[in-house]
Every structure is written in C-alpha cells, then in structure tokens.
C-alpha cells in the first residue's frame, strides 16, 4: 500500500472514475469498451442474446442485446456478469499429465499421443466398449456433431453420453415416446399468449429469470405453479399448488380424469391425431378428485378449479423443468403432461404447448446432433432406414453405424465399478459435484486405468482426479451455435483468446482425430467449426431439426432462427410411424426412498439464481459468489423445533449413503414440514453425497428430487 493512500492524499480516483461509453452511456471508466461482440449467453438454455464489450483484448462489460427476440435487451445476474468468467484465476492453461500423483505440464502433442495410446490400449485389451465418454451441454453444436462422429466412428465405442442425462433426458425420452421425436413443440412467445399457464416443478424465477419477463407481458393469463416448495416462482402464481413430493403424475391424471368426466376434451383431435385413448380413459377412472386429493395433498376444489381452467382455456401452456425430469418416473411424467395437451388439443397452436424448459445453454444442440441417445438429426439407432441414410451421408459402410444406444451416463459410472469401463474421457462437466451418490462415483473413478478431463477450469473437483487434463476454451473464446429451449439456433462468437495453451474443444477433437488417424476420413478438409456446421446442414436436411436453410450469417442477422418454425405439429402430424401421437396410461408410483423413522425427512435439491451448476464459473465471479457464498439447508420451523435446532446452526444431512456436514440451517416456511431443501451448487458442502443412485429406467435420469435423510447438529469433530 502506498503512503499517499494511507495518508489520504490518494483515493484511487482514477480507478473509480467514470466516462462516456458511446453505447452504454455514462459508466465506470473501467467498463468502457472499444468494440462490442454480439453473442449468445453461455449459461442456461433460455438463450439470451448479448453484447460483450472488449477493450484491449479483454472483456470488460456485457449488455443484453436489445435486438434479440428472446430477451429484448435484458439479462439475468449471471449474464450481466458473464464477462468476468473469462478472466478467472482457475482457468486450465496447459495440458497436464499426472506422474506419481503430481500434475506436470506437457505439450499438446505429448498429451494427445498419451491419451490416444492409453485409450487404444484399453480398447484393445478390454474391447472397444471399455472406453466411456461423458460430455456436456456446454459445447457449441458444431463441437457436439464433431465429437459424436469421433467417438462412435473414430474410437468405435457406443458408451458415450452427456451430462444432459442428469438434466433433461426425461424430457427427451418423454417427447420421443409421445410424439415420435424429441423437440419442444412450443415457443417462449406462448408464455405471452396462453390464457392458462401451468408450471410443474419449474422455478423459473431462480433458474430462468428472463422467462419471467416474457411471462409478465401476458396480463390475462392465469398462472398455476405446482411445486412442493414455496419457490420464488410460486409467489408469482395466481394459484399455487403445494403438491406432495412426486405427486405430479396424480395431479395431471386427476386433471385428465375431470376433463374426460366433464367432456372438456377435444374428441376430434383425439380421434384424428392420437392412439391409446380408450386404454387411457379406462385407466384414468381411478384418478377421481378424491383419490387425486389424497395423493397430492391438495383440496378437491382446487383440483377441480385447475382442471376447469385448463379444460376451458383457449390456449393452455404447460412448462416444466427439473421437478419433473429429476425422477425415476421422469419420462413417464412427461408423457402424462403430453397426454393432457393431446386430450385437449392444446398443441401446435399459439400459446398451446407442453414445453420442456431445458437446462444448459446448448443441451438442445447436443440432443439434435450428439450421437448419444440417437443418431444425429433425431434419427433412431433401431431404424435400419435411418442407419442407412446416415451411413450414406457420411460415406461409411452401414455396418459402422451402431444399431443400439450404448451405456447412458449412470451406466458408464456403474460400468466402471463393474470394470466394463476402463478408461473415461470427461468433457466440460464436473461429476464429482453433480453426480448423485458421490461414493459410487468415487469408487468408479478408483477403478479407471486412465481418466481424461477436458475442461476450461482447473483445478476443479473432477479435474483434480484426472490422469490427464486437457485445457479447453470456454464460452467467449470460440465460435459456433447454440440451440435454446424453443429450438432457436443462435450464433456464439469468439470474444477473446483462450488463456495459455488452451484450445477450443473443436480443435482438440480434430487433433485427437488426427492422432487416431481418422481425421481425413471423418473430417475431410475440415479446419474450423464452420465445416462441421456445413456438414450438419446436409445431415439435418429433411429432418424435424432441419438446418439446411440456415447459414451462420442468416442466424446472426435474424438474432437466431427456430428450426421447425415457431411451433411443431401444427398439422397434428407426429413423428411416429402412423403419424399419431401416443397416449400413455401412467401410474403414479411413490418415489423410491420413502422416509421412515430413522430417516424421517425428504431431501429436495435445486438451484439459486446467483449460481450456475457446480460454480466452476460463478464461484469465480466475485459479485455472484459474494451474493451467495455458501450452501444452506431449508427446514420448516416445526421440524427444527422437534430437532431442537436453531437458525444458523451448522447441521449435517445424513442419508443411508453418506453425510454432508457443516451446512447452515435456514429455518423457514418455504418448505413443508417433513421436507428439506438444499442447493446443489457447492462442492464444499456437496448435497450429492446424500442423494441416491436411483435412475429413471427409460431416460436414465437420476432421482435427485427426493430421498430420505435425517438432520442433526454437526458436532465440532466432524467439521
């Protein structure tokens, strides 16, 4: 510190001065940019357009793009501070190879030679499927497309999945089962035009705040929010439905029962465009309002009222997120939601859609292209026609196209425990914090012969365990496209150079392909992500997600283009063999781990607006981390009294599997008695030590939202 400052002569006035920015106006001089780069936000799937201000090669400011149709100039707090993620200290800068427990910097050449040699050795010894790959929803579409080919055709392993299986796999599976294809049928604009909006397990005020702004434009709509917790979103509702955990299926079935009972269904639509109505009708007979009330905990009158509102709506919108997806019945819950839309014909019209609000910025891009749960372009592994078509497009023998999906993410982890998976490549995800039941993951990692972690951030809890760390460029350091929840393809642009020796994931994939000797075959003449995009345009041509008419330039100029237009299924023709959507009879089952005397509380997990996933980014943004510096546990005062716990006590959450210690207690009426809530962002107090290994048999999505635990005061010893 200088003496002038100590004496008070210097108040760092220059550092704190203001100036006129030609675009932003009067602003802190430190935030004045010399040019602005238009791009798309890299956090969630709302897909906001933003402009990033750059000065002397550094991102110094962000503003919402007023011309972007999604957000019209607004951003959430994470977006408003996103430029800081490009200058954080915990960035991966060099390839690091672990030797005798310590990371050593190596050249890219050495790193990739080692990686390919190790992977090949494992595959030769244990079979091609012994290599597992877990990717993400964070890459650009061009990278997902490239990676899919590299893994499935280059490495020849089917055991490839994304962390999107922890997030929206249930929506994907549900859409596929009901409509024959993935693809959320509606648009955000529906939020502005629907007259009834039902949100199920979706806390958009915390997780997708910009959608609240879209919702606010709709003054006539009745907003109904179903959630076991009084979320910020619940506070926006005209009708809040405080459902018991995992009673959403009963609620939806109960509504459907009333609609059929009172003739509030669209018989014409059902007749023309669906199959399975008679079975469903018979099945739903037992979901009387009385039965529904007993399962959901809602008053009969409320259920009747909500059913009337939905049934009489001119345009009804159902939105959902993780409250539905994070369930052993996630895919089925999506089917039940789709049932409701199909029974009433609330689909394919403005304001009418069963709409999955996705998580990550480009989870949708991975769904379209990634070659994990299907062949690129929503083609099916099982379809010989689809396999032949893609083989022809790629000019490879059809025998090289897999005819079934490989292991899903949780199965890859359990495969490592069973030693079916011997080497693992993790790309841009942090399973040590995000995967349920940490002890299982730890054991799985312990079994691996070689673990490669490719990430923008190091050290992070997962990269620390790697044998090889590949430093990747992150959002803002590379180019491509993202698809948001409403199927809008938006351009992502490079703002600054990646730090140190870090490379874009695209360049890493091509370099790996070259080492593997498949670059010329799979990616002939490719030099940049635009080449991938051009090939993808051809591959997607004629598919539901048809990019053939798009160019990077036209996407940029339009502020994003929705494939399939503003909505899908306008003509009631679905992607099934007979063109009809399927109605499913969905049983409402109790969640797998019910509370008992020893573990009397139901643990629910979720997010807070200040943070993104496992905080590798937002934990490094000072203002966000300062606003929400640590985890907490919400408990109803009645439970706290029983347990003799006081506000701010340090408590432990104990499940049958493990425990989380030292969590600060928030005694609050936000949660119901018998239920507790904890955010999942914090590696330091990782709630996924307590969550369970229970997965949806259809989508393979984990059941994060309910497990049974007890809570006790953390003793001094255990912290």
């Amino acid at each position, binding site marked *: 510190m200088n003496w002038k*400052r*100590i*004496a*008070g*002569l210097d*108040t*760092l*006035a220059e*550092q*704190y001065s*203001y100036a*006129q920015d*030609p675009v932003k*106006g*009067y602003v*802190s001089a*430190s*935030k004045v940019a010399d040019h602005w780069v238009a791009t798309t936000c890299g956090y969630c799937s709302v897909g906001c357009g933003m402009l990033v201000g750059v000065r002397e090669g550094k991102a110094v*400011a*962000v503003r919402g793009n*007023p011309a972007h149709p999604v*957000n019209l*100039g*607004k*951003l*959430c*707090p994470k977006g*408003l*501070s996103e430029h800081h993620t490009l200058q954080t200290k915990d960035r991966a800068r060099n390839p690091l190879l672990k030797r005798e427990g310590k990371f050593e910097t190596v050249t890219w050449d050495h790193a990739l030679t080692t990686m390919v040699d190790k992977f090949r050795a494992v595959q030769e010894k244990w079979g091609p499927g012994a290599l597992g790959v877990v990717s993400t929803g964070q890459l650009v579409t061009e990278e997902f497309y490239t990676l899919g080919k590299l893994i499935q055709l280059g490495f020849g392993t089917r055991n490839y999945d994304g962390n999107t299986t922890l997030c929206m796999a249930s929506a994907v599976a549900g859409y596929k089962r009901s409509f024959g294809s993935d693809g959320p049928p509606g648009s955000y604009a529906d939020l502005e035009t629907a007259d009834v909006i039902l949100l199920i397990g979706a806390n958009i*005020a*915390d997780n997708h*705040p*910009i959608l*609240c*702004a879209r919702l606010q434009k709709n003054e006539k709509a009745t907003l109904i929010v179903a959630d076991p917790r*009084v979320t*910020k979103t619940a*506070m*926006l509702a005209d009708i*809040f439905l*405080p459902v018991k955990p995992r009673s959403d299926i009963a609620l939806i079935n109960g509504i459907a029962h009333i609609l059929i009972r009172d003739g509030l269904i669209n018989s014409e639509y059902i007749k023309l465009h669906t199959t399975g109505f008679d079975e469903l009708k018979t099945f739903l007979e037992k979901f009387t309002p009385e039965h529904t009330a007993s399962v959901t905990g809602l008053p009969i009158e409320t259920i009747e009222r909500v059913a009337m509102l939905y049934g009489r709506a001119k345009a009804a919108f159902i939105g959902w997120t993780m409250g539905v997806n994070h369930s052993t019945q996630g895919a089925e819950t999506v089917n039940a939601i789709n049932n409701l839309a199909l029974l009433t014909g609330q689909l394919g019209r403005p304001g009418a859609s069963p709409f999955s609000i996705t998580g990550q910025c480009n989870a949708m891009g991975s769904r379209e292209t990634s070659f994990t749960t299907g062949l690129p372009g929503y083609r099916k592994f099982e379809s010989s026609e689809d396999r032949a078509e893609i083989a022809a497009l790629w000019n490879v023998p059809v025998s090289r196209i897999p005819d079934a999906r490989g292991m899903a993410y949780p199965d890859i982890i359990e495969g490592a425990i069973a030693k079916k998976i011997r080497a693992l490549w993790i790309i841009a995800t942090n399973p040590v914090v995000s995967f349920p039941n940490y002890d299982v993951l730890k054991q799985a990692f312990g079994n691996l012969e070689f673990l490669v972690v490719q990430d923008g951030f190091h050290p992070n809890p997962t990269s620390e365990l790697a044998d090889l760390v590949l430093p990747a460029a992150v959002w803002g350091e590379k180019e491509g496209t993202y698809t948001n929840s409403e199927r809008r393809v938006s351009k992502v642009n490079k703002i600054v150079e990646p730090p140190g020796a870090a490379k874009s994931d695209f360049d890493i994939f091509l370099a790996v392909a070259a080492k593997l000797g498949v670059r010329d075959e799979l990616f002939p003449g490719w030099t940049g992500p635009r080449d991938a995009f051009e090939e993808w345009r051809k591959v997607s041509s004629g598919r539901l997600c048809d990019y053939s008419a798009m160019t990077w330039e036209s996407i940029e100029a339009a502020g994003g283009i929705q494939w399939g237009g503003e909505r899908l299924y306008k003509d009631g023709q679905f992607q099934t063999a007979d063109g009809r959507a399927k109605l499913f009879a969905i049983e409402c089952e109790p969640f797998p781990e019910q509370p008992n005397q020893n573990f009397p509380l139901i643990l629910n997990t979720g997010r807070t*607006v*200040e943070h993104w996933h496992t905080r590798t980014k937002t934990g490094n943004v*000072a*203002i*966000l*981390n*300062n*606003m*929400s*510096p*640590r985890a907490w546990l919400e408990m109803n005062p009645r439970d706290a009294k029983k347990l003799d716990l006081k*506000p701010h006590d340090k408590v432990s959450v104990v499940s049958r599997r493990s425990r989380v210690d030292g969590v600060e207690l*928030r*005694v*609050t*009426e*936000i*949660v*119901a008695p018998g239920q507790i809530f904890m955010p999942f962002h914090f590696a330091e107090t990782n709630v996924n030590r307590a969550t369970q290994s229970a997965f949806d048999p259809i989508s393979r999505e984990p059941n994060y939202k309910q497990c049974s635990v007890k809570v006790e005061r953390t003793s001094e010893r255990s912290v």
Partner: protein
Amino acid sequence: MSLPLLERAIHGDPITRYTDGAACSANGLVNLRLIPPTPETSSPSLIPDRLPEPGEQYRFHFDMTKCIGCRCCEVACSEQNGTPADQSWRRVGEIEGGVYPFTQRFYLSMGCNHCADAACLNGCPVEAYTKSPETGVVLHSSDACIGCQYCTWNCPYGVPQYNPERGVVAKCDMCHNRLADGDAPACANACPQEAIQIEIVNIADWVADHSAANAPGLPSSHHTVSTTRITLPGELGPELEKANHTRVHPEHPHWPLVFMLTLTQLSVGAFAGLALLRSARPLAAVAALLVAFISLGASTLHLGRPIYAYRALKMWRRSWLSREVLLFGMFAGSATAFAAATMFGLPRLAGIPTMLLGFAGITASAFIYLVPARPSWNNWHTLVDFHLTGLLLGSAFLRALGVDVPAGLIAAFASGQLLNQLLKLLRLMRSDEFELKASARLLSQDLERIFLARFALLVLGGIALTLAGYPIPAFVCALVGELTGRYLFFVSVVPRNMALPWAGGRAA
C-alpha cells in the same frame, strides 16, 4: 447543472431520448453524448420525461409486486459503478412470513432513498454530501470525504458504504449523470421485470405524507423522510419479517475510536480533578495533557484520510462530529495553557474553562452516537456512560499519580457506571424493538464473556482495589474495564437496516 432533460423540456419534446450534437452545440451545452450508435434503449416508462420543477425532486419507485428477487439490479449497479464485490450500492432484501403453504416471500430492491431529510448529509462534518437543488439526488463527493464513516452510522437504511481500499465512503447517486443524458439508471435499466423506475415527487406533499415509503423489512420512513415510493402487494400478511432477522453479528469495533473516546474522557476527568481538587500537581497535569494528545492523535487513525482531519471542523453549525472536533481542539489548547500555568503556580481554578470545554467535548462525543439509526446508542445511557468513564478514569488516574482523590468518590463513580450499564442492559432486554433486543442478545450470548469481564474489571478496579488502597492496579483495571466497555459499545450495536438476503454476508 446543464441537463439535456431540461433542454428537451424547453423544446417541449418529451419523446426525444437522445440529444444530438447539433442541438447541443446550438444551445452551448457541453459534455453531451455526440455519437448514438445503437444506444442502449431505456423503456420510456422507466424515467420521467421532464426535469423536476422547483419544489420537486426525482425519486425511486419500487414495485414489490413485480420483483422476483433475481438481483439483476445489484449486479448492474456494481458493473455501472465499478464497485468492489462486497460493497453494494443497491441491495435486494428478502422478507418472509406466513405458514406453509400460505408462505409469503417478497423482495425489496433498494439503492439510496435520496431522503428529504437525509441523515447522512446532516451528520457529515465535511459537507461531502449535498442534495442537488435541481434533482433532489443526495450526492456524495469522494474528494471532500475524509472517511470518518459517520454517515454509515447515521443512515437508517445502511446505504453509505465505506470503501477501505479508497479510504472514503460512496453510495448510490441514482445514476444522476445517466439521467442527465436521458438514460435510465443501471438498476432500472437492467431489471427484467421493470420493477424499478424514476419518478418526480412534490417534496412538500411527500413530507406531509410519506407513508408510501414504508414497507415490511424497512425502517420507518419518518427518520429521514425516504423518498422511495414502494408499491406493495395487495394481501400482505401482518407477520412478514426480514428473512435475515435471525442473523445478528457484532459490528466493527473501531479500535481507534475505542481508545480515542476512553482516553479523551480520562483526560477530561483528570483535568476536572486538577481544577477542583486542592492537591493538584504539575506532573499530573502534564500526564493528563499527554493522554489527551495521544487520544486525539489516535482518533485520526480512524479516518480513511487522516491528513484531512482538519476538515472535520467545517460543519460545526450542523454536525456533532464537527462540534466534537472543535470542542476537543479548544480543550486541548486550554489544557495546554492550564498545564503550563500550573508549573508557574497559577490558581487551580484557572482550570475551570478547560474542564468545561472538556465536558462539552464529551457531551458532543456522546451526541454523535445519539442517532436513530443505531438504537442501542440512542439513549441517555450513552451520555452518562461517557461522562462517568471520564470521572472514574480521571480520578483513578490522578490517584494513581499520587493526587489525593477520595477513594469513596472513585468507588461512587464506578458504582454509577455499573448501575448505568445494568439499566441499559435491562432496557435492551425489555424492549420490543428488534435492534435493541438483538443488542441484548449479542451481549448476553455472543459477547457474554467480554461483557462479564467488563463488569468484573469495573468492580475490581473502580471499587475493590481502590477501597483496598492499591491505586495503580486499581487504575489499570478500571482503564482496561472502560476500554472493554467502549469496545462492547461499538460491537454490540445492531443498526437499523433494510432487510437483507438470508444467505448474504458472513456465516453465522
């Protein structure tokens, strides 16, 4: 101040959002934006389309029914002003109440309330605060500020933030420079829900009825006549509370002030003794003078900008802090003269002016702390506390130096202090006011040991050792006891503040 808004109003053009260069230069107005390439557009409803007229001012309007607690305004404010992450000029508080599932959760987004009767401004010793005559915005000058932080104690909303990196305070200025350019403040501009707006208010009407500035989770607007208008949700439950009401932390101890207050009081007490007692000695006078100079010197360490300490004299007509500096300055001068005089055998009653200046100084000290924003300070116990510290330590000091002070007198002062502190604790404990109860909780829980030690030292030094005839240990114990007392004074205060987020700040 040249405002394009004004210019627009003159031309009767309420729609123009950006003044072009030609129009500016034609009117001789300078410093206006000349290049408007796709400028950031503010929704027209966010700011008024005219300037306040005489008798009017700008104010914030916050619509609680629209706010979703996303905290965009906080981030936008930080980006706008380049503030450090831990100093928010705009904060979002949470309020909560009801019983599940009829729980109510609402948010308060607040910058500065640009009060009609701004306590920060009234207390500032250096006139760093001004209230703009054109816009009513309460402005703070970091050039004028000396970093005394008095404003941070005075504001019942906790708005002014001391920035230790700079040594000065800073706060929300309603982005008045953006307003002047026709741009919405950063917070209003960023809010996805358009819950924050700037409006014009007639000041006299508002002073007459400012009930719309009140909301659950906020201190009453009557302290400072906050001008922020708040639209409340229709059916607010009666039991809504600050979500952070259970999170009570000890405040900053302000060590230089702990020493400054205790030692100036000691010195004043000693000079009172020297003026009134027969057996006064020159040595004791010099020692007491030394204590006075050390303590006044120490006080500058409290300032962010010690070199400008002299500026604190400026606002003596208005600020108790200025008056304290002035009176203690005069006391020090008078005490120097008196100490010199004692060496030449001048009559001890010549010390009376010194004594009076000293007591006046202690009174001014106490009045600094009698602020509504800090309820546990804002009572007569503070005044009594400070004077009794002076009398107790002054007399014990003289006795330790061999002056013949009756031990019974010292014990009486100590007993007085003991009684004063016990009565204060009783007042805190029995109060219905949240801040007072919380102070009592701090003293009886978090700070319990220190609180008990302070009493023990008072009894031991002020009474037991004094009566037993150990004047030096008695003085040392009493001094440590009073220093501890002053430390507790600072750390146990629970300021009034707006509701804050449950999760923010330090862990409990």
